[in-house]
């Protein structure tokens, strides 16, 4: 489950009372907005302001939802907040944070570990805090459109934590302007059965009941598909899925449309019904939002990554039209620590691309319109064409790639 989806499902969790929770939630929201930005190129941030109705925030008629992502070479932190008001009915505040670190073992294999937590404070319902943590092994061939992730961790259940293990596989492909993604996921939770104990020592015939409750391992299986597309200033997605579990099965769906009015301001409409988040123990629910989205960098990196273009040899070149005009360039180079580019628009001087999450490197400024001869190099190696771009021999004994920007 993507961090964003996980956080949004978290908006519908059960709650506990307490003024301290209110203060913590407020602090979290302020922190989200006030966190220092070390380099604008590594930060994604947006703020949705509009009308919403999400899970137990049902009836909220005004909502403000900031979100940010801060990515380094081996870690990322994402945060999400929401303030909702239903007038005289009261206010609600929610903050959620997720931190993930990873170590790439090979170009296709990575070890990762993460923590996700949320704090909620509702004046019309009890408050709640919750967290989950995991360690995982992830194999992905982005250029082949496949990812497999195995993880073990702790999940929030009621007031305690239970063991969680998860296997998740994703396949995706590009069909013209449409990207299709298929998801299969099985999550096993070791949920406690209250009041059932076991002998502390089975050889002790007079066995004393243990206070440790017995565990019942429950499997949840999710199958789903997502269709995404973007054209010009509009991007949209529709996701459908079904969860199978012993306690009852149910379908979930989500639809989202985002129209960029300027390079940084868009109109967002989203709605759906989310499944309960198994990591945070928060209940799912229906949600609907109509909001203006103000963004630090326009379309999110996640959206850009999904609109993948050329792919070859384990490395990928991604050219994406920006809503406000211009074309951004990013290169996927798993395992590389430094990627440089030179082209006619840099006067053939090397320019370092900015590292992003999971092996992506991005040119900080948009490409000027036109056709450009381009070379790139990885970790100071030889100059080569960008992966997958049309190539031609240069006059100096090398090969140059041809990149077209609109």
């Amino acid at each position: 489950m993507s961090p964003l989806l996980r956080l949004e499902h978290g908006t519908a969790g059960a709650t506990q009372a307490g003024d301290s929770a209110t203060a913590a939630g407020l602090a979290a929201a302020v922190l989200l907005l006030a966190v220092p930005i070390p380099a604008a190129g590594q930060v994604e941030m947006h703020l949705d302001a509009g009308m919403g109705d999400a899970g137990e925030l049902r009836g909220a008629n005004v909502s403000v939802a900031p979100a940010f992502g801060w990515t380094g070479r081996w870690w990322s932190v994402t945060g999400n907040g929401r303030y909702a008001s239903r007038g005289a009915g009261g206010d609600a505040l929610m903050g959620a944070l997720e931190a993930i670190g990873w170590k790439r073992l090979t170009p296709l294999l990575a070890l990762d570990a993460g923590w996700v937590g949320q704090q909620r404070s509702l004046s019309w319902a009890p408050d709640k805090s919750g967290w989950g943590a995991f360690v995982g092994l992830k194999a992905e061939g982005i250029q082949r459109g496949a990812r497999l992730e195995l993880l073990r961790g702790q999940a929030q259940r009621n007031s305690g934590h239970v063991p969680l293990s998860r296997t998740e596989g994703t396949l995706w492909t590009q069909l013209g302007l449409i990207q299709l993604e298929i998801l299969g996921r099985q999550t096993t939770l070791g949920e406690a059965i209250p009041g059932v104990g076991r002998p502390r020592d089975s050889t002790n015939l007079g066995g004393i009941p243990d206070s440790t409750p017995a565990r019942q391992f429950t499997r949840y299986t999710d199958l789903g598909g997502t269709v995404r597309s973007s054209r010009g200033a509009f991007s949209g997605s529709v996701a459908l899925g079904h969860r199978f579990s012993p306690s009852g099965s149910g379908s979930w769906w989500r639809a989202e449309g985002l129209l960029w009015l300027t390079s940084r301001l868009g109109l967002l409409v989203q709605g759906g019904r989310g499944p309960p988040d198994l990591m945070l123990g928060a209940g799912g629910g229906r949600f609907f939002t109509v909001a203006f989205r103000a963004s630090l960098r326009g379309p999110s990196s996640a959206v850009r990554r999904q609109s993948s273009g050329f792919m070859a040899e384990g490395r990928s070149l991604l050219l994406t039209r920006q809503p406000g005009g211009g074309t951004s360039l990013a290169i996927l180079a798993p395992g590389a620590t430094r990627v440089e580019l030179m082209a006619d628009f840099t006067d053939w001087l090397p320019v370092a691309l900015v590292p992003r999450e999971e092996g992506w490197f991005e040119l900080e400024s948009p490409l000027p319109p036109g056709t450009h001869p381009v070379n790139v190099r990885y970790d100071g190696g030889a100059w080569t064409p960008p992966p997958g771009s049309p190539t031609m021999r240069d006059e100096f004994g090398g090969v140059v790639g041809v990149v077209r920007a609109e």
Partner: protein
Amino acid sequence: MTDHVGVRRTLPGIPPVLALLTILLAGVVPPVRAQEPRLAARLPDALALRITRVADSARTLGLPPEPLIQKALEGESKGADSIRIEAAVMALFGNLARAREALGIRAGDEVILAGAQALRLGASVTQLQDLQQLRGNRPLAVPLGVFTDLLAAGVPMESAWQSVQDVARRGGEDRQFERLRERVSPRPPDPADPQPPQRQP
């Protein structure tokens, strides 16, 4: 004694009108420019001067000078020697001039450059002229760019030309040319590939 008489005296054998025209033109033609700063900063002085002159000549002929400067900078960045850099710049100059001749004086810089790249990859002047005639007054940059990309992607000249020509004959929009490009899966160059033809001006 009039100036006319003076001219006659100082330039014996040259018709007075032509002599006067030469003097007037000398005032119109711009003086030799200083070296282009980017070239002066990165190339040996003599080479920078020669490339600057080629760029000035291009400007005078209505050809885009910037690609010539970029070609020299590209050579410098790739560690090429002066002879190779100058040869590359002169070859590009020649292709720009031939593209201009084929596509006419109304063609923009982007179209001229795309034409020059197509010529470098083996296209002929006749093909450029044919494509321009087929397109009439419609923009030529995308069809030429697609033609170049097809050649760069390893599509045989005959097939690439046939594809582009077919779309142009049907009066296709830019989007239809773009689809041709999308059908091609690029391949890395093979060292055994023949070198593209090098033409001198």
